């Protein structure tokens, strides 16, 4: 039954989780898996808390999941990592972008900024990386989502070649090079231990 693998991409509306989820799903399809993906459009996208769920395996039924089910949680933002951690199964892999986007209630001083998230997530086994810094290094600050997919790829059963060919086809033509570099930098960061837990 549990031949299905579930990946949750959690972030803030506008961070590129939808494109990243589409890339991941297409990679899984290219490698011959059945795939389902679920995301929510509309009002929540205006700077709200968003997630994309990608599930792959021999036969996938539900496009959505429950808490405690995901084998992978790729968090595009620190606070969303903390918010969505109950999705992650015990022993699941947690990749976290160290960037913080403070929500409006914190910006306006109504809600205190969260403290101690990094050690708490570390305790949960998080692998951290600074996706924005690596994206800048790759030549496009907007490629942070692909940096994170590079980091995620280390724990997923797909060949780097498949990732690269899907990224090439999926991102805007003039950003292909930057996005391929972003993917490699994210992947190297994890392989090389720079973002090991």
């Amino acid at each position, binding site marked *: *039954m549990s031949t299905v693998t579930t990946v949750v991409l959690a972030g*803030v*509306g506008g961070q590129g989780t939808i494109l990243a989820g*589409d890339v991941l*799903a*297409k990679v899984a*399809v290219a490698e011959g898996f059945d*795939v*389902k*993906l*679920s*995301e*929510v*459009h*509309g*009002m*929540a*996208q*205006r*700077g*709200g*808390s968003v997630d994309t769920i990608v599930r792959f395996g021999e036969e*996938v*039924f*539900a*496009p*959505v*999941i*429950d*808490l*405690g*089910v995901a084998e992978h949680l790729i968090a595009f933002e620190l*606070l*969303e990592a*903390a*918010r969505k*951690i*109950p999705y*992650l*199964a*015990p022993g699941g892999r947690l990749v976290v972008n160290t960037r913080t986007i403070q*929500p*409006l*209630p*914190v*910006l*306006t*001083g109504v*809600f*205190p900024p*969260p403290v101690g998230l990094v050690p708490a997530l570390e305790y*949960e086994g998080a692998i951290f990386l600074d996706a924005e810094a690596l994206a*800048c290094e790759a*030549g*496009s*600050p*907007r490629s942070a989502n692909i940096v994170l997919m590079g980091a995620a790829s280390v724990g997923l059963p797909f060949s780097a070649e498949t990732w690269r060919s899907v990224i090439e086809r999926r991102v805007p033509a*003039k*950003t292909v090079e*930057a996005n391929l570099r972003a993917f490699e930098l994210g992947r190297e960061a994890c392989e090389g231990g720079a973002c090991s837990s």
Partner: protein
Amino acid sequence: MSRTLTSGNEAVARGAWEAGVAVGVGYPGTPSTEVLENLVRYEGVRCEWAPNEKVAAEVAAGASMAGKRALVTMKHVGLNVAADPLYTQAYAGVRGGLVYLVADDPGMHSSQNEQDTRNHAAAAKVPLLEPSDSDEARRFTRVAFEISEKHDIPVIVRTTTRISHGKSLTAAEDPETLVTRSYVKEPDKWVMIPGHARARRRLLDGRLAGLAAYANDCDLNRMELRDPSLGIVCSGVVYQYVREALPEASVLKLGMPYPFPSDLVLDFNSRVERVAVIEELDPYLTSRVKALGVELVEHGLPSIGELSPRMIAEAFGETPLDQREAFNDLPPRPPLLCPGCPHRGVFWALDRMKAVVTGDIGCYTLGALPPLQAMDSCICMGASVGMAHGMEIAAGTDRPLVAVIGDSTFAHSGITGLLHMVYNGGHGTVVVLDNRTTAMTGHQGNPVSGRTIAGDPAPELDLEALGVALGAATVRVVDPQDLEATLAVLREETAAEHVSVVAAKAPCALLIGPTELRYAVDDELCSKCGACVRLGCPAISKEPSGIASIDVSVCVGCGQCVQVCRYDAIAETGPACDIGGGAS
């Protein structure tokens, strides 16, 4: 056959194209919007955004009368607007196949209610198909056109958010070769005067009987016999949850839940020991299965919001999964108005005026949230105008009273409210937030913006001329990015004893993108008054010291904060960082 990863909305468009659809028309509404946006990319299909769902349904009806296949798209609440044509279209029937794609939103991800379209189908007496994944969305849409023509009736294809915005592997087939149908004058079928309608009402029962017979043995409804100890009746995405949660259970999957396949349900009941119905939202299937005298397993699953595989598994006795503990006291992250959003200027002014604001549906509904909190109501498309008038004649408030409505929403159903206000001697102030697009659903063109779904230029609705024609005493145009000017006009118009329209014109911040300017706070000059923070701009924060701070990577340089700072503490600064290449 090669299968590609496709969303339900893309698949509906593909199915309609394969069915030879000639006309696609709708009003944008999450989660239905991308159906037409995909259909317009196919050669030979005429697609149009309508001002509202009623007009869309009527355009589709005309195309059907002309003999062409037509698809009309909307979200669930849109069907309330289109219910008037639909309920009588069931009597008249069709000539070319006529299919309504209606997308429900269990859980209200982006909606004001979670009504269940299956009830509408039964009440309107039109068949309803319910796909469970993208490939079914394609195939069912295709079949819906056949059913429509064969049984002379409009057909609803109902999706839900997880089908519309879920992606799964989907096949593609060649389009059908259709026998050309043309217009034939048939007044006893199309002119629904009482004498004709009475005859058509009786004929409708005959057509429904034929459809019920079809429902009992078509392959849209499927019995999957596995372990006979438990049989589940379900439809739509819930089928997928059931298969995951209870893989051994026998299942009756209803792809066509109306007309209800009673014989098939009784047959299923005779083949399994116990029957349970599992469904999202209203007990549509439950009440019908019960009415057949079938005793149902009680499971206690809710009729509010979405279901999930684990909810179902646990309702049938599985122990809950081990879970990581949630972090306590995390700040919420509600959606918000974008940096540079022109709506913010209007809400800032309304907040300053302490106005009572009847609101409407669009991005600007976010003006109801803190810190602006400048909206007092939001019920349905167009309600702001009528509600402002109702508040006025009921002497509901001594404070300034303003209706706030977006450009597309005004065209959808605000115009008649304004007409009512004028006709009945009201003194209301109607602010039309004209940001040149239908922003919330993803920037569709509309009659005010003057751009068609195909991206072609169209005549722009002249809001000023329209306001005058409807009888408004004044029509003022303001730039909502000029905060003081906006406040001054709103003060004048709410004080005046006449109907006024204020067109707040400035393009959506996402349409124009960031300016070259960036701003920063001078710590020496900042008085910690919080005026800029209260704009609710995601670029502006309050430091622990109370001093304001601007995140230049979020700032788009709109300058709204500069205008509200009385201490000249906000000034231009350099760009965010020199990464090179800029935004990709």
